[in-house]
């Protein structure tokens, strides 16, 4: 593994607290994911790809913004791998970089109407920018 990939892998593992080696590759996370079809990389691939150091591909992918954070994969994983935490970690690693906000406050007004709850806006801000 080249140095950068190694650094990224270590960061992802450290901040997520996930140990991908616990994975027995059953695919239940991807079997349970409600937003599977929208995602380019699926929960089980996050686990496998982080273990193999292919984090940059994940960081570039839209999939990190499509995880609903519903934690169904976290709850149902038979081995306690908690793939959702890994998705969150990779997403944060992406948006924490300089100028890598996925969306900013400027993008909000066009969306927000009077029915949109503050909770949603706040959540989106937390998920899309640092």
């Amino acid at each position, binding site marked *: 593994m080249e140095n950068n990939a190694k650094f990224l892998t270590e960061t992802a593992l450290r901040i997520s607290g996930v140990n991908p080696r*616990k994975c*027995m*590759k*059953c*695919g*239940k*996370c*991807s*079997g*349970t*994911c409600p937003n*599977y*079809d929208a995602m380019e990389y*699926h929960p*089980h*691939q996050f686990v496998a790809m982080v273990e193999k150091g292919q984090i940059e591909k994940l960081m570039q992918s839209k999939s990190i913004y499509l995880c609903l954070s519903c934690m*169904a*994969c976290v709850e*149902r*994983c*038979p*081995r*306690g791998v908690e793939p959702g935490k890994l998705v969150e970690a990779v997403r944060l690693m992406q948006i924490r970089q300089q100028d890598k906000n996925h969306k900013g406050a400027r993008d909000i007004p066009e969306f927000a109407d009077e029915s949109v709850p503050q909770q949603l806006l706040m959540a989106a801000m937390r998920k899309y920018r640092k």
Partner: protein
Amino acid sequence: MQKIGVFVCWCGSNIAATVDVEAVAEAVKNEPGVVFSANYQYMCSAAGQKLIQDAIHEHHLTGIVVCSCSPRMHEATFRKTAESAGLNPYMVEIANIREQCSWIHKDKEEATAKAIVLAKAAISKLRNDTPLQAGTSAVTKRCLVIGGGIAGIQTALDVADAGYEVDIVEQRPTIGGRMAQLDKTFPTLDCAACILTPKMVEASQNEKINIISYAKVEKVSGFVGSFKATIRKKARFVDETKCTGCSLCTTKCPSRKGKNEFNMNLDNRGAIYIPFAQAIPNVAVIDPEQCIKLKTGKCGLCEKVCSAGAINYKQEDELIEREYGAIVVATGFKPIDPSPLNEFGYADNADVVTSLEFERLMNAAGPTKGTLLRPSDGKHPKTIVFIQCVGSRCEENTKRGKPYCSKICCMYTAKHAMLVREKYPDTDVHVFYIDVRTPGKNFDEFYRRAAEQYGVDYIKGMVGKVAKEGDKLMVQGSDLINNEQVHIAADMVVLATAIEPDPTARSIGTMLTASMDTNDFFTEAHPKLRPVESPTAGIFLSGVAQGPKDIPETVAQAGAAASKVIGLLAKDHLVTNPCVAQSNELMCNGCSQCEKVCPYGAITYVEKEVRGPGVREVRRVAQVNPAVCQGCGACTVTCPSGAMDLKGFSNKQILAEVDAICRW
């Protein structure tokens, strides 16, 4: 004062090349107690042994030290040598100057010096040796088998075949166990009942076998060779000696609310019932929870229709006390309840069933008479999804399930899938699997046949959600090979649920002081070399009680357990290891610490009159049962008053060795 002889072996050149054996013999000559020393080429040879025996006679030796190979090699040999010369066999000590000296050192001077120290340590220990007598205990020539499934039946048949009496204690009203509930067996697809019921009949007809059904072992005391068990035979309210098994009563019984356990609660039975047609004993039993007569005093229909006069509403539990030389644990298993894993929808949908329920739905004697109909509406399912590893292979210490592989599910799922496709070729069958594990004779061929010849759709992936939609079950899962999420509209979902030890196993293990693992499977004495014995002497393991197994493995283990039982019962007496713990009653303060650390339950406390210098009182003191004690010594260190000591490895002996080695 002891008279000690020291015999230094050359072991050809194995010892003599690196250790100056003559120098060793010479150096120990003046050790206190030593009256004779010699060296010889091969001490273990007939001539060498004769040399020892002659010296014992000639010098009236009270003990011998042999400086030779490891005691694990020839201690037994030299003990026999000593014994035949009239010496107590436990007055023999070995100094290991081969494995621990000549073989690992190259410098002769250094090796010789070490050999001398080892010899002196052995001499010091021997000076503190006392003659030990191996005790004997009688063997009761009867075996108790707990559990009457295929494991218990096979063990009982094999033990009885050798001519010993066997009691099978079965908690259900009939023997047969889980195998009786199965439809077909893999990988040959022969019908389970066809191969099991003859064995059940054989067991019931064997004069040496006594089947105590609808009973449980309530108490066990004693030790290997002489256990005493109390067995509670529950009231079945039917006189076993009179009932002919005509089953008229079961058809007339007006109560129909009792769940039929034999059919995995998929249908109901009467309050008086015979679990299944081939039950052994073929005797009815009344479920007191359901019986109108027993609950309200009215009814009594069964009594009226019974021409044999076998019904007895006043029958009470019966306690049986019996002695046994050996006990076999064959308590078997049950499938786990998959309700907590409700992403599979078991708790909410009648058409999500466990594999054992599916067996009953496929069985000609089952609730649907062998026609596969789904429980909710009695329709033929056209699409069936099987999910493997439900509750198996989960992270340890979580609520998700068991950490182990249940071993049998891959094969029975292949069997189910194949049977469905054979009987109902228009039915689509999908199997979600993580791995297909088929190590067994003709197993992988069987699985491949299911996929290749029967067109069973094997999907590498796992199901994440089963949701009812209309009259379909929407199964959402991953297909890892295709890298896609699949959605299958199924009519039935079958869960290959993990198996776990029978719920009674833990209490039986405690009763027998037989160790268990964290999953409540019984632990074997050695995982490779003693796989059918419990570490507790006299307790043997048969079948799934020890770990997940299929039928052929269970039968093999049952036979192996039987051969161990026969080996034990064939003896009239057991020679006990004399190197056991012993409590000095004068020093014992009755604190019970030793009792708590003993892994064998060998220590009990008794009120006893203790007499000694200036002492004469009744006190509570520890007593070691030498037949049960295995001589580990845990108690000796735990004892705060130093009352407990281990014969053959006493405090004095070990301290003498320490002193000899550390001498300044």
